[in-house]
């Protein structure tokens, strides 16, 4: 995907000819004036707080009184804290549960909706619709669908003689409920990215495989999937980055409960900051999560040469 392509090297421009110095001056002023409106906010609201977070993470601080230097104390405490492990465990459960579900479903949909079918664009539109919906709406609608007592899902299950589970009210079913709702929302995203990839596979390659007598499975495994690998790579990288930062839907669906059964890392960061006033620990935890995400992303980028076409 284009966004992941790092720096474009076509940055050199034709040399100016006449009035070089005066134009240079005016160019310089223009450059500063044009860049400042974006550079200042990015520096002030992204880069500076990013570094500030690292600094805060080395202190004990309740957001009000003076900061107290504790070195890596927050980090060692967090690593030893069973709550941190539980939060990472739930987050990992979400990632491992949601991503394969959405990926397989999205791939199947993309393959199916790439064929010439009646009403194809309408079908694509319907499958994509949840993507534009707010996570809070998704969470609340599913909280209602999965209401253990009067929800429609358990109602339908009862009609066929199945006693539905307690869903988000049951510690064992809280994470699966969140995964189900999230998968519904993310499916269309994977589908759209993979469809774009499928459409860029040249017709003559497919025809050549047909002429060579390759069956549908063979064509899928030897031609379609390898040529789709850049989009698959993109989807996996983005899904993992977003998955580890799961928060909105958890907050609105279970609030981390019941009994902490769905407490995820970002929810823990939020609680540490605004419920327990432990800003130092919160900053340390957010950096821990960031490092985990960064390492996973870098590992994938490093590993992509092995399997991504044209990487």
């Amino acid at each position, binding site marked *: 995907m*284009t*966004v992941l392509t*790092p*720096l*474009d090297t076509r*940055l050199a*421009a034709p040399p100016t000819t006449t009035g070089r110095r005066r134009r240079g001056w005016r160019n310089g002023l*223009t450059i500063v004036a*044009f*860049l400042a*409106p*974006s*550079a200042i906010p*990015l520096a002030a*609201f*992204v880069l500076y*707080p990013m570094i*500030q*977070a690292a600094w*805060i993470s080395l202190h004990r601080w309740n957001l009000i009184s003076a900061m107290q230097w504790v070195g890596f104390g927050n980090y060692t405490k967090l690593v030893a804290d069973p709550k941190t492990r539980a939060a990472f465990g739930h987050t990992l459960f979400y990632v491992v549960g949601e991503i394969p579900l959405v990926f397989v479903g999205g791939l199947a949909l993309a393959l*199916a909706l790439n*064929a010439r*079918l009646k009403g194809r664009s309408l*079908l694509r539109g*319907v*499958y*994509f*619709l*949840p993507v*534009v*919906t*707010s*996570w*809070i*709406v998704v969470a*609340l*609608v*599913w909280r*209602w*669908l999965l*209401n253990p007592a009067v929800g*429609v899902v358990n109602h339908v299950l009862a009609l066929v003689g199945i006693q539905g589970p307690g869903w988000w009210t049951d510690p064992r079913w809280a994470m699966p409920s969140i995964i189900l709702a999230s998968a519904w929302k993310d499916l269309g*995203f994977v589908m*759209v*990215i993979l469809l774009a990839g499928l459409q860029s596979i040249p017709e003559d390659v497919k025809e050549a495989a047909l002429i060579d007598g390759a069956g*549908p499975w063979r064509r899928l495994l030897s031609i379609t999937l390898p040529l789709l690998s850049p989009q698959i790579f*993109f*989807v996996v990288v*983005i899904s993992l980055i977003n998955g580890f*930062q799961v*928060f909105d839907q958890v*907050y*609105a669906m279970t609030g981390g409960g019941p009994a902490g059964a769905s407490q995820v*890392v970002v929810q823990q*960061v*939020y609680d540490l900051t605004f419920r327990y006033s432990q800003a130092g620990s919160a*900053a340390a935890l*957010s950096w821990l*999560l*960031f490092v985990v995400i960064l390492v996973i992303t870098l590992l994938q980028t490093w590993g992509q040469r092995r399997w991504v076409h044209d990487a």
Partner: protein
Amino acid sequence: MRSRTGVGRWVLWAVLVLGALVMLFPFVWTLVTSISTGAGLDATPSLVPQHPSFGAYLELFRRTSFGRVVLNSAIIAVGTVALQILTSALAAYVFSRLPFRGRGVVFGVYLATMMVPMQVLLVPLFVEMKSLGLIDSYLGVILPGMASAFGVFLLRQAMSTVPRELDEAARLDGAGHLRIFGQVVMPLVTPAVATLGVFSFMNSWNAFLWPLVILRSPQLKTLPLALAALQGQYTTRWDVVMAGSVVTILPMLAVYVFAQKYVIQSVAGSGLK
């Protein structure tokens, strides 16, 4: 395509239609619940409400300040979209047209800011906003999102395709950079601007974590915040909660229906939530 002819193709189509109905059902159920007064009190509402009413919507706008909430969301979204387009376009003009030493590095730093997750910024940005006195204000939500590295990237890609000959022609006519930017380049990259506009609107409209941190008073809350709060207030009145959901979905739905191409481009291009 032996396997997909005739029956196979028909079965595939039937499965896809069935799947689409399943995907659509939560939306239908939301709408049905919102017009079934008292839904959720004791029984599952029926798919076709026997006495449909807009009672839940009336309750929503009379008893809670939901009208104000819609306005808050609109103000913040419009402000964010306008600022992001302006700041991104100006920077994109430089990155596509005005070379300077170290430009590649500066552009790299811009792109790097896309990797920084919101949750890392949570504590320090909150402190920063507090010292600027912007807690519980529109500006506190809008300012941190006024520049977008993704926007700069997107518009730079579009602007690099605008032929330089057009700049030269305008320059010979005596136009400066501001005029070339506004009257030559910008009109030619409107599709990319539309994509960025949709992307930025969607993100702002659906944003949750940062507004949750910064907005405290009920009169300033945005739709997702008010919706999450509504749930605590009307624990068993699902008709009211679903009415709030419908109000939140509708504007996004309208954008999607009328600008489907740009919505899909913005989502496909960014991969952000």
